[in-house]
């Protein structure tokens, strides 16, 4: 038959077998890497936080702590630093269960209100509004930033919660955030979710987060 004379490079069977082997190998490698990754991105525990064990995704109880984002000399990227205890809506003794429930309620609210179709979370979503990955640490919400005084609140968490409930009252730009009917409880939960998200080790994204402010605002 003619088939026999064709070199392997022109043989359908050869390429079909190649396709099967290559695909099988890629799938197995992906599964193996996923089995390694999932435990690494599963949330840590409250004990980890107490003992200073770093996790890529810390326990939700991280809302009891101060969070920083600093250049790490070894990795040469910015990484989240978990500092001392810090009040969050007047408390710093959220138990693991309480904190986990709160952050989860926040995440459900973020999903129900469709935040991701204007903002990005961990850089994924829409580009109509600022990235929320490290919004908890954003200087705009700090003591000196423009938004906290605008809401007349004393702390970052209260200022953010107030803004979330009444975005119409605090237009930060012509492109306003709509009123999504976020309740006071939901607002607290969303802020807890955002605080927790800022403690995730994102390999240095976003880069240079507010590091060159002085150079830009050379007042």
């Amino acid at each position, binding site marked *: 038959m003619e088939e026999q004379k064709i070199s392997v490079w022109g043989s359908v069977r050869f*390429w079909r077998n190649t396709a099967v082997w290559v695909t099988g190998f890629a799938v197995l490698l992906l599964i193996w890497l996923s089995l390694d990754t999932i435990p690494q991105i599963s949330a840590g525990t409250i004990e980890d936080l107490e003992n200073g064990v770093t996790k890529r995704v810390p326990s939700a109880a991280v809302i009891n702590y101060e969070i920083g984002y600093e250049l790490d000399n070894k990795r040469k990227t910015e990484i989240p630093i978990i500092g001392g205890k810090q009040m969050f809506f007047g408390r710093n003794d959220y138990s693991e269960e309480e904190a986990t429930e709160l952050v989860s309620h926040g995440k459900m609210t973020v999903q129900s209100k469709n935040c*991701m179709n204007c903002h990005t979370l961990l850089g994924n979503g829409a580009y109509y509004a600022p990235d929320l990955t490290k919004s908890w640490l954003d200087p705009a919400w700090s003591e000196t930033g423009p938004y906290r005084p605008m809401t007349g609140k004393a702390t970052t968490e209260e200022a953010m919660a107030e803004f979330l409930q009444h975005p119409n009252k605090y237009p930060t730009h012509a492109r306003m955030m*709509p009123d999504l*009917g976020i309740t006071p409880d939901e607002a607290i939960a969303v802020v807890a979710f955002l605080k927790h998200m800022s403690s995730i080790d*994102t390999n240095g994204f976003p880069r240079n987060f507010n590091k060159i402010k002085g150079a830009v605002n050379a007042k």
Partner: protein
Amino acid sequence: MLSRVMNVQYESQKLAINYFQVALILFGAQLLFGLTTAIQYLYPQFLFGIIDFSVGRMVHLNAMIVWLLYAMIGSVYWLLPDETGIETVGIKIGRLLFYILTLAVTIVVVVYLVVQVGPGNAMSRWLIHEGREYIEAPRWADIGIVVVVLGFLGNVFATAFKGKRTGIVTVLMIDLLALAGLYLAGMFYTKNVSVDQFWWWWVIHLWVEATWEVYVAAVIGYGLIKTIGANRKIIEMWIWIEVAMLFGSGILGIGHHYFWIGTPEYWLEIGALFSALEPVPLLGMFVHVIYDWGKQAGKRTPMTNTPAFSWFVVTTFGNFLGAGVWGFMHTLPQINLYTHGTQWTAAHGHLAFYGAYVAALIGMMYIGLQGKYGLKEMRMTASAKWGITLLTGGVLGMTMALTIAGYVQTFIERGQWGATWQGYFVGQNSPWMIQAYGWRLAMGVVTILGFVFLMKDMMTIARTAQRENLKTESTATATA
């Protein structure tokens, strides 16, 4: 005689036409909501509080995903009898599932537009939407989709086992099974946002950069055999090479989405390496189509369906440019660290989806149209030319505008301002950004014009072709 009756003998192909029709309606909806959101970029008060950006964007994206899936299912129902030589098994159930799916899609869209948002609890996720980009469909609809797709797969498998199982059908069977299975990875709630996005990318990335790509490789293979009489043996060999290259690079290429979501550092290397290889098969597909075209031109055999073939040429260019080149431009972590989640991403997303999937599936619809009226030959009409030119030009124009916006945003917001809240708005306020958004809007309008021509053409091209064919027949008899 000019006839408007369907000339299709297979029920499967009649059903395919119905799938194409709903797909085109949803394509129109997609463009409409793209328009409202593009206007909001420039005039934020437009429809504010009525159809907010988030709502319009959700409809824009979901209409796109759903219409592409409709067109994909339709194309399979079209080619299945041709390939297997028999009527599709279980076609009655297939038709019933079509009506169920269409009803479900209608309800989902109405709820998106009317209810829009719900309270932060599980009920919202089950009944309104899931709030996860691209796969927002509420859980009840997810389950419905799984049932419908299982039925569809059942039909395809039963038909392939009963009839002739060609290489094209074999690839499609395996690929559709994987495509459907992946959807399950997006169907559960998790409290952990990193774990959430990890699985979310299994659906999104492993769809568009693995299973959907293999799907179009197989379908374009069928299309080339149909339109220019390409050699089946060579086509099937090429498809297997494509499968090896696409899956070999695309599956682990998922790592380019695992740079910054909390996942370990080794993904930086894996993602960079494998996703950098992803353009290779796309270049291969491009070369293959051009090569076959050259061979066909040499043989001087008539091309039986010029509009379909033109769309296949657009898809090979567009896939290579939009996915291959625009994808490669931001796929290395050194660059992606700064471009991640900027207008860069949107530029790539538009050209890639259009080039890889929209163009290929419109090509299949033209094959369907030709078959529907039993035409031996179908040539480009003026509207077909306007449609393909304005649609492609419009999307290319939007992509260029968004690429400029992406550059400016990356420099100002990411480079200069360190990605802060204030930096974001300084970037957005830059006159260069605003100008780019203006061009995106203008080019969006061009795209919509192209769609209008396409629709007009799809409704009239068969008549035109019948008239032309009659004319040539009568001149042929006159000279004889």
